[in-house]
């Protein structure tokens, strides 16, 4: 069954994502932030499904929500958070940060209001059924080099993480 990009689901998921995003940056307790981020990520996976990208959605769930976020939670539990909760939550440059972010937002609005015309009215047709196969062909064909580089990056990241986190090597 082709996913139906109904407005209802879009606005529901977008609402969840935005609320989750706001929670991420406002909660005192990092565990709450992480859980809000997980909700955001899962909603985003659903949005990927609406965008005819089931494989990316699956990867999003398995890697982001099931992998990276567990890592985050793990670390949050390892470092004691009692102290940081009692402290001030926002840094001293928060006014500057907000102004910069607002400026960036203004930029986005400007670009999107000006550039709407370049988007085609209707999206081009897309077949969902062999999405995974096609992605696989591209990953192992056209993007082979990038794929290998990414694997190298992961290897470096693993070694780096181990070197930094381990007390005695």
């Amino acid at each position, binding site marked *: 069954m082709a996913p139906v*990009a*109904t*407005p209802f689901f*879009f606005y529901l998921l*977008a609402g969840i*994502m*935005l609320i989750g*995003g*706001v929670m*991420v*940056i406002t909660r005192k307790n*990092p565990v709450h*932030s*992480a859980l809000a*981020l997980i909700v*955001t990520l899962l909603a*985003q996976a659903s949005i*990927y499904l609406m*965008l*005819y*990208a089931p*494989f*990316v959605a699956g*990867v*999003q769930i398995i*890697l*982001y929500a099931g992998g990276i976020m567990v*890592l*985050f939670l793990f*670390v949050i539990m390892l*470092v004691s*958070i009692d*102290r*940081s909760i009692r402290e*001030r939550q926002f*840094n*001293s*440059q928060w006014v500057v940060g907000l102004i910069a*972010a607002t400026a*960036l*937002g203004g930029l986005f609005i400007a670009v*999107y209001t000006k550039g709407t015309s370049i*988007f085609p*009215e209707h*999206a*081009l*047709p*897309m077949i969902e059924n062999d*999405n995974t196969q096609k*992605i696989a062909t591209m990953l192992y064909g056209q*993007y082979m080099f990038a794929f290998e580089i*990414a694997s190298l*990056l*992961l290897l*470096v*990241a693993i070694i*780096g993480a181990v070197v*930094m*986190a381990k*007390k005695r090597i």
Partner: protein
Amino acid sequence: MESLLHISTLHYLVLGAALFLLGVIGVLTRRNVVIVLMSIELILNAVNLNLVAFSRMWGGLHGQVFAIFVITDAAAEAAVGLGILIAFFRNKETVNIDEVNLLKW
């Protein structure tokens, strides 16, 4: 109203931009390193959303492939970032980004 009910690529882009902004605000204003790292994840996700939305718009898969690369990158970034965080925490016993000032003597 009509444009609100017909979900076009622009809707996804606006959502992505909003998430990006949230992430930027988080990175710029929070003191807790963990939350800063999570805000970076938000930014990366906003980018992914745009990539997949554009991929949908053009009917190609390059955007999706690129999104997968970004997710890989995010995993690497999270692993290294959290590794640094743990090393930092062990030395300073805090997760406060204001105190990451070893270069400032």
